[in-house]
């Protein structure tokens, strides 16, 4: 039998890949199928799942109540649609801000002296190695009413003898946006850097020889050639922002509720895993649709693996 295995390359390949395959099927694919099944179920009074085939959870997500009184004029409640829309727009805004901040820095590193590039890149990675939760906490310290930013602003105002009332920044949508941008910024810098670094210097020289100025060179040479990096970075930023619940939990207080918070609460506080599963599948479908159309337009950069 061993001899036969030695000659059968196909069986060898399957055998080598089998542990990973087992994990992918057991812990990714089966859980996803299970989530789908549970999302059609109903919640029992003690929070268990009653398996059935009901679309109630999805109907509820899209704003219609199933146990709506006959006397009510409208059963439409857009609460959950608003949450979905808020998550989508926040993910979009965060990604745009991240690109705007990441691009100049990635460009700076890629154009720096080769000897210093690794140090500069290393400096981008250090904040990433501090823990995700710890980074959210750091922004809590900066943003609160008596926090560091207000302290500095008050000091500046004092220099010019201006009156100053501390800004209320924590527990606002802006705080959540800043937190998201901060958390995922390095994930954009790395792929953009990777694609910028690949651009041959002779292309810049050729552009200059042909009379292009700095802006024209950037728009016609640099930007198009760095698009794979921007695309990879967008996927690495947009998808996690859509699903994260800690940033909005800590920096948004109870004011900013995103899909992530909705799902988390269904599983822990409200104890309705069936509704949470439905919300989670809608979240997955939303990210897949956005990713699909986005990558179809711009291509799927290989930079995603490099980062």
């Amino acid at each position: 039998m061993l001899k036969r295995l030695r000659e059968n390359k196909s069986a060898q390949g399957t055998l080598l890949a089998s542990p990973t395959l087992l994990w992918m099927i057991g812990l990714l694919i089966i859980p996803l199928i299970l989530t789908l099944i549970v999302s059609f179920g109903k919640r029992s009074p003690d929070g268990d799942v009653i398996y059935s085939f009901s679309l109630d959870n999805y109907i509820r997500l899209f704003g219609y109540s199933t146990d709506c009184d006959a006397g009510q004029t409208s059963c439409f409640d857009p609460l959950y649609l608003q949450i979905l829309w808020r998550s989508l727009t926040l993910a979009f805004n965060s990604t745009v801000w991240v690109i705007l901040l990441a691009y100049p820095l990635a460009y700076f590193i890629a154009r720096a002296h080769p000897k210093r590039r690794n140090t500069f890149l290393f400096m981008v990675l250090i904040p990433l190695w501090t823990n995700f939760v710890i980074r959210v906490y750091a922004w809590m310290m900066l943003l609160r009413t008596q926090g560091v930013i207000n302290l500095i602003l008050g000091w500046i105002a004092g220099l010019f003898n201006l009156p100053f009332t501390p800004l209320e920044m924590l527990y606002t949508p802006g705080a959540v946006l800043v937190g998201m941008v901060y958390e995922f910024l390095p994930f954009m810098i790395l792929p953009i850097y990777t694609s910028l670094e690949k651009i041959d210097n002779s292309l810049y020289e050729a552009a200059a020889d042909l009379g292009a100025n700095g802006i024209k060179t950037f728009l016609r040479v640099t930007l198009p050639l760095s698009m794979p990096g921007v695309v990879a970075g967008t996927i690495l930023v947009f998808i996690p922002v859509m699903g994260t619940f800690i940033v909005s939990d800590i920096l948004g207080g109870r004011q900013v509720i995103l899909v992530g918070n909705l799902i988390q609460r269904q599983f822990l506080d409200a104890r309705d895993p069936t509704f949470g599963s439905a919300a989670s599948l809608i979240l997955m479908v939303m990210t897949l649709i956005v990713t699909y159309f986005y990558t179809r337009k711009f291509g799927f950069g290989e930079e995603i693996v490099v980062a």
Partner: protein
Amino acid sequence: MNPHRRHPFIFSSAILVYIFLYAPIIVLILFSFNASRANITFEGFIPTFSERTVMEGSVVKASPCGPFHWFCELAKDDDVIEAAGNTLTIAFISTLISTIIGTMAALALQRYEFKLKPFSQLSLYIPIVIPEIVMGIGILTLFSQLFGVINNGLGLSGDSRLSMGISTVIVSHIAFSVPFVTLVVQARLQGFDKSYEEAAMDLGANEWTTFRRVTFPMILPGVLSGGLLAFTLSLDDFVITFFTNGPGSTTLPIYVYGLLRRIITPQVNALSTVWILTIFSAVLLLQWVQSREAKH
């Protein structure tokens, strides 16, 4: 044209982004020396050493550890020690397993043809394109349903009932680490010509010897960086751990998250400082080892 010339706009925005990246971390570290227990404003460093901690209101006036008061408090906190132990145990075991099986899968995908190859390759992209919370609640549902069936089916009771704990966290961490290890090792394998291995085989080496003497040394840097990636992913993970942990398997990120919803003393900052310095020195050490190896 000097290719390394600095455009003032690029230069100044790069500086600003670096400040944006580092300001929160510097504040975090500074506040771990805060004399104020309330930790809202910075009340200065703890000025003196003393036999016992002296408090005036919520401000620490003197401590056996002086300015390092909160670090000493941290070292005395059993919950933190336990969480740190769990975090490292989970990271080491899940890295070890995911690096081994991920490397095997990378070899299979790059050097062999088999029926399930396209499916295997595609499945590796699932954790990248699906939000972590979707994976987290999926795994939670799987374990809770599975354990429910087993516990009821076998009539288990009390301590013998299966429940969430350190092993469910490890198994789940492997699930999100393996694809990254596989993709990194695969990228490394892609860069190498198959002819090295074929030459070894022609010279009479069997498959195992070829792997040990030719393939493995070639892909080792890829395996190491894949392993490092898996290790950092595991250390940093919050979401998957949040949904798969149980009593006694709290990790540091989960512990910190719990604290953030209660009173936050500078002890949390001290913990963050220790965390940052540990990771920073580990990475520096690794870089130093790698650069030494490169010279040899």
